[in-house]
């Protein structure tokens, strides 16, 4: 390409940077800066002198790694992590299993009311998490739950779903109910993208619907299964609104039940923004490590599969 006469080379060279500026500015202002500030806060603490009343009794000082060591040695944060691990072990397999099953069922040839079923399964995703948790909370509470009423009338035992082990099921149920539809749509979309001639060939070779599902459809939607798994794990690590909404209804949910609830509690109830910042950084790093580790593992598997 010949350079237009009269235009100085300088202008052409700087053009890409000029195009980058808006994105870079937005990135700095709304991404890098808040993260940097959170990091800054996490290395500081407030120090109070004496009674701590009146002017000059409180100042902000450098804390080094103290907030981090406190957070890592905090048994409540560890217990919260263990609790959401248990919760995730229920949510992720059940939700993805159901999503895959529904997607495969919707994708079968003979199906009536396809559009309606798809919408009906997807609809709970459109309900805000807090509203869903409130609604399920009413259904769980023994004294107001219609299920308990029916169980009682039938003379069956009435389990307290807001206590002990069943509490995990109760919380997982809300997440599964709300999240299955979204994951199903992701898997279903990728099922629809599989070329029809593959199925035709399979049928000609005498494959049953079940065999097509197991041997062709599931392997071919593996990338979207990886994606949905990835989203679900992140959502599990960040679980906050459901337990927070159910908390007032039961003695079994503490104010620090999940790690993010602990961050909230420290930042906005205990007014210790520095400890909260350190915990948030740790959670973010753990999420990052987990996500990248998982994606790397998934990628290498896919590559090996391709080279085979």
């Amino acid at each position, binding site marked *: 390409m010949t350079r237009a006469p009269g235009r100085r080379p300088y202008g052409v060279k700087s053009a890409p940077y000029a195009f980058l500026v808006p994105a870079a500015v937005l990135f700095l202002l709304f991404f890098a800066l808040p993260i940097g500030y959170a990091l800054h806060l996490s290395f500081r603490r*407030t*120090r*109070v*002198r*004496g*009674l*701590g*009343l*009146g*002017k*000059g*009794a*409180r100042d902000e000082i450098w804390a080094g790694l103290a907030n981090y060591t406190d957070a890592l040695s905090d048994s409540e944060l560890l217990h919260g992590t263990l609790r959401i691990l248990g919760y995730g072990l229920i949510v992720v397999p059940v939700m993805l299993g159901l999503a895959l099953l529904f997607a495969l069922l919707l994708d079968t040839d003979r199906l009536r009311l396809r559009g309606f079923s798809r919408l009906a399964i997807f609809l709970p995703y459109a309900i805000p998490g807090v509203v869903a948790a409130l609604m399920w*909370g*009413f259904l769980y*509470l*023994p*004294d*107001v739950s219609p299920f308990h009423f029916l169980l009682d009338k039938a003379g069956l035992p009435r389990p307290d779903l807001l*206590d002990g082990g069943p509490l995990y099921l109760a919380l997982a149920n809300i997440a599964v109910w709300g999240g299955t539809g979204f994951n199903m749509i992701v898997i279903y979309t990728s099922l629809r993208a599989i070329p029809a001639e593959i199925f035709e060939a399979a049928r000609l070779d005498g494959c049953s619907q079940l065999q097509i599902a197991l041997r062709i459809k599931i392997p071919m939607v593996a990338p979207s299964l990886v994606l949905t798994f990835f989203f679900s794990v992140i959502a599990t690590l960040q679980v906050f609104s459901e337990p927070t909404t159910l908390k*007032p*209804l*039961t*003695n*079994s949910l*503490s*104010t*620090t039940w999940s790690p993010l609830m602990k961050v909230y*509690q420290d930042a*906005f*109830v*205990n*007014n210790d923004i520095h400890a909260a910042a350190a915990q948030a950084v740790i959670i973010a790093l753990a999420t990052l490590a987990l996500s990248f580790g998982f994606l790397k593992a998934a990628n290498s598997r896919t590559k090996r599969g391709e080279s085979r």
Partner: protein
Amino acid sequence: MQYRTVAVSTAAALAATALLSGCGSPDDGGDEPAASGPASLTYWAWAPGLDKVADIWNKGPGKEAGITVTVKKQASGDDLVTKIITAAKAHKAPDLVQAEYQALPTLVSNDVLADISKEAGDAKGQYAEGVWQQTTLGSDALYALPQDSGPLMFYYREDLFEEYGLTVPTTWEEFADTARALKKKAPDKDLTTFSANDSGLFAGLAQQAGAQWWTTDGDKWKVAIDDPATRKVADFWGGLVKEGAVDNQPMYTPAWNKALDTGKQIAWVSAVWAPGTLTTAAPGTKGKWAMAPLPQWTAGENATGSWGGSSTAVTNDSTNKKAAATFAKWLNTDPTALAALVKESGVYPAATAAQTGGALSAAPDYFPNQPGFYTEAAKIAQGTAPAAWGPNVNVAYSAFKDGFAAAAKNKSDFGAALSAMQDATVADLKKQGFGVSE
């Protein structure tokens, strides 16, 4: 801008002069035209209808004094405390804030609140000693003016007490016996529940027993949450929960509402504001409830604690501190303002003169069967034990919620939960660097 600042400070100075000259007669506060320029104040609060009360000021005494108050509903309770502290860090706090008594040390410790003892210290005589002391933090300063208070009382289903042949307990021992007697007669019913989801009730019960959770000792805080008085209260309720004499489910849930409305729970230890809660929680049993003094630890005494209650404070960020204090004083001591507060916001005023007569001469709508409701309430309020708050009530309260919820659920030792609450509170004070006396 320059001229406005001058005008504003002139207005503030004049308003203060008017206030000082009006000492002793609260009705005069701000009645005289005291300013030549406008002062515009912002007030963060959550009491419903407070904007209507502020309108009375803006159209009357405020107009003459040139002080306009705008009420902004930002958040309530602890959430508002967090918001105010955050705003104060940016030096953008509003002129006036509503704050619960137990939040005052936290706010003072964050250097948010201004000392208004010069402007409003003369209002002292209008409040019960125990209430006033919560706004001074035991010092010579005055950080807020008391607005409402919540003396604890005993609410019970009059009809069901009669049906089961129960008498209204006057001591806690009788209270326990009543709970057991009810269990014998109707095993599926409970006298009440021990709920761990509102720490304020437990704090009030401890105050009644004589607890002083935070006191100062020189420049050190002394934390006495695990003191004999509180331990007595914790063991009492822990025992009742353990033997199954009272329920252990939290209050303010749909299940709790239903229990109150259907008579599954037939009593509630609550505060003077309970009629409002009962109206929404148990609408079907209106007129069937009655109020009695809180059971006592020693027969014949008249002691009670407080559950809730809030104050009006002026912030250090206010450029019109004197004008703000003038308004705060009018709002919480002027008969017109207090009557409007009772009517519009439904508060139980902290000012003793306003606790009887006027807007409180008729019983609450929910209690048509007890015409002398507020006369009795005023008598009970006289015995309000002083409360002593410290700079990390929030930490103690969350430790209470988690520890006592688990103890109530497992029907385990409440004393252990109380020790944990004490330890968490002391550890937090030390971590922040406060002086702590052991």
